[in-house]
């Protein structure tokens, strides 16, 4: 299905107007970061600082373009992913000891410290950020609408590859282990498994996805600034992840598309009150579809007699 959709999008891309392609690119980038948040949520961890990796990915592209003159898309995204993963591995050593609200607040705190530093250090361009030069692909340097088209196709391709990889990971033995951590980590420890090492691993995976999203967003917007790691940005990823639900790797993309569509239209029609619209819609979803948008897909699946997808944000007896 991923392959069909991705191939379809890439082939039909010239038919869409430029702004639609741009919205799709940003939705995919946000979806990738939110996929990382969603994977952490499966283990019961709520990261409120995923914007940090979004920023690391974005600035990898920005720095390569500004200081090294490298504009190659493959090199830039690879650097973004590797840099974010490295950051996540380092920070993860400290942070995976924490759970629930403490994990959320610490991830938030680190992201905000980086934000505070980035604002003051001229290397990051202050509040203005850095501009990113037009992307190239192994020497192929399109211009104008062709550039945007190629970028779109590259974004779709990379996202599809990462979705497939994430799905493989979540369906593997390790993926089941992550869900078990959410259920009861003490029992896992008794079974001789290292909860900490598994959490570190998925924190790195989530960071890498965040870096990929940040790199793609920076290339699409041709710009990166410290607000990538501001807490409202991180909050948006959490929002998208919960809105989609943890039922499937597609759920965050589903939700990020919906969010971007609402944002585009609300910004045009209700520029001053789009938060109100968003808030009311969120409340309606939370109250009517507490398992996330993906539970709609489950209703459809059930109607057609297929087995249901796993659902993780379930009612724990935590009263």
């Amino acid at each position, binding site marked *: 299905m991923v392959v069909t959709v991705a191939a379809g999008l890439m082939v039909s891309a010239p038919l869409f107007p430029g702004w639609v392609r741009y919205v799709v690119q940003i939705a995919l980038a946000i979806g990738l970061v939110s996929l990382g948040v969603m994977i952490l949520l499966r283990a019961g961890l709520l990261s409120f600082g995923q914007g940090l990796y979004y920023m690391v990915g974005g600035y990898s592209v920005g720095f390569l373009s500004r200081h090294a003159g490298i504009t190659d898309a493959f090199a830039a995204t690879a650097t973004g992913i590797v840099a974010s993963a490295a950051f996540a591995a380092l920070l993860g050593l400290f942070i995976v000891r924490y759970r629930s609200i403490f994990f959320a607040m610490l991830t938030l705190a680190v992201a905000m410290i980086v934000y505070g530093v980035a604002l003051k250090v001229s290397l990051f361009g202050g509040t203005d950020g850095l501009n990113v030069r037009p992307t190239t692909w192994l020497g192929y340097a399109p211009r104008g609408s062709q550039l945007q088209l190629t970028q779109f196709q590259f974004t779709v391709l990379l996202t599809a590859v990462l979705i497939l990889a994430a799905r493989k990971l979540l369906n593997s033995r390790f993926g089941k282990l992550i869900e078990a951590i959410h259920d009861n980590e003490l029992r896992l420890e008794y079974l001789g498994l290292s909860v900490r090492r598994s959490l570190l691993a998925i924190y790195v995976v989530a960071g890498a996805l965040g870096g990929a999203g940040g790199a793609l967003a920076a290339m699409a917007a041709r710009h990166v600034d410290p607000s990538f790691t501001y807490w409202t940005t991180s909050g948006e990823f959490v929002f998208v992840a919960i809105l989609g639900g943890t039922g499937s790797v597609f759920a965050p993309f589903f939700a990020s598309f919906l969010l971007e569509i609402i944002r585009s239209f609300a910004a045009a029609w209700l520029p001053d*009150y789009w938060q109100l619209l968003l808030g009311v819609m969120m409340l309606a979803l939370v109250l009517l579809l507490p398992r996330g948008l993906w539970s709609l897909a489950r209703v459809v699946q059930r109607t057609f007699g297929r087995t249901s997808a796993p659902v993780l*944000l379930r009612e724990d007896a935590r009263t």
Partner: protein
Amino acid sequence: MTLALTILVDGISYAAWLFLVSLGLTLVFGVLRLLNVAHGGLYSFGAYSAAFAIGLSLRAGWGTAAQLTVMVLFAAAVGAILSLTIERLVLNRLYHEHETLVLLATYAVFLVLEDLTKLIWGGKSLYANAPRDALGTTQIGALAFPVYDLLLIGVATAAALASGLFLSRTRIGRLVVAVTTDREMSAAMGINVARIMTGIFVAGGLLGALAGALTAPKIAVLPGIGVEMIVLAFAVVVVGGLGSITGAVFAAVIIGLLRAFASHLVPTAEVFVIYAVMTAVLAFRPYGLFSPPVTRKI
């Protein structure tokens, strides 16, 4: 010497404010185990109501004391009504859901409240500085310090003492502590947990709106003040130990003083000093300064 005094006075003043904005949040967290993002919305509603009430009483030609009384009463009423509505319409249906979902719901309420303030009072900034200007300044050493800010320090101290006494000396307060400690056991002992939860949520919302109202004379009331405040209040609550009022006092004082240090001596660090404190505290006390030990349940 003057610098040290300035830092001390600024720090205490900031700490008083931090404590006032996080008191309601920490109460709600303690009892409901929920991070109430909507607290930020109640705060801005409180600030806007205060600016509105002061505008009205200025037009009526009332004195400073009357202005402040009207401001506090109006904001408290708005806060109580709003939070009761939120609890009845939204939270009441979600108590059995996963905490991330409840967090999302309060975030949604926060977004709605933010835009509602814009819808009601417009997007321009409002000013409520009349009482603060009328009260003038007083001399502390070589420092001219606004009397209103001194008053706020007094209010924060009184609020800390009153809430401490309420929780330790009154019957309802003891019930609240029981529910905070062990919700299931309290229910088993015949405490009406649902009613305590509703009551505390409303009280928390009222305190949030009051904090906003008391802040209003010091700032320009404009859209976005709730966003700035909510993350700071979270940090105070987490550093103090979730649900602990003593903890919130200590956290507010530590953060307030360090921030004053930073803003006078290392201005570049001012943006993130609160987060640095939070990281440092949690590195050594993983559950905050004043939190009871948590048992792992198998």
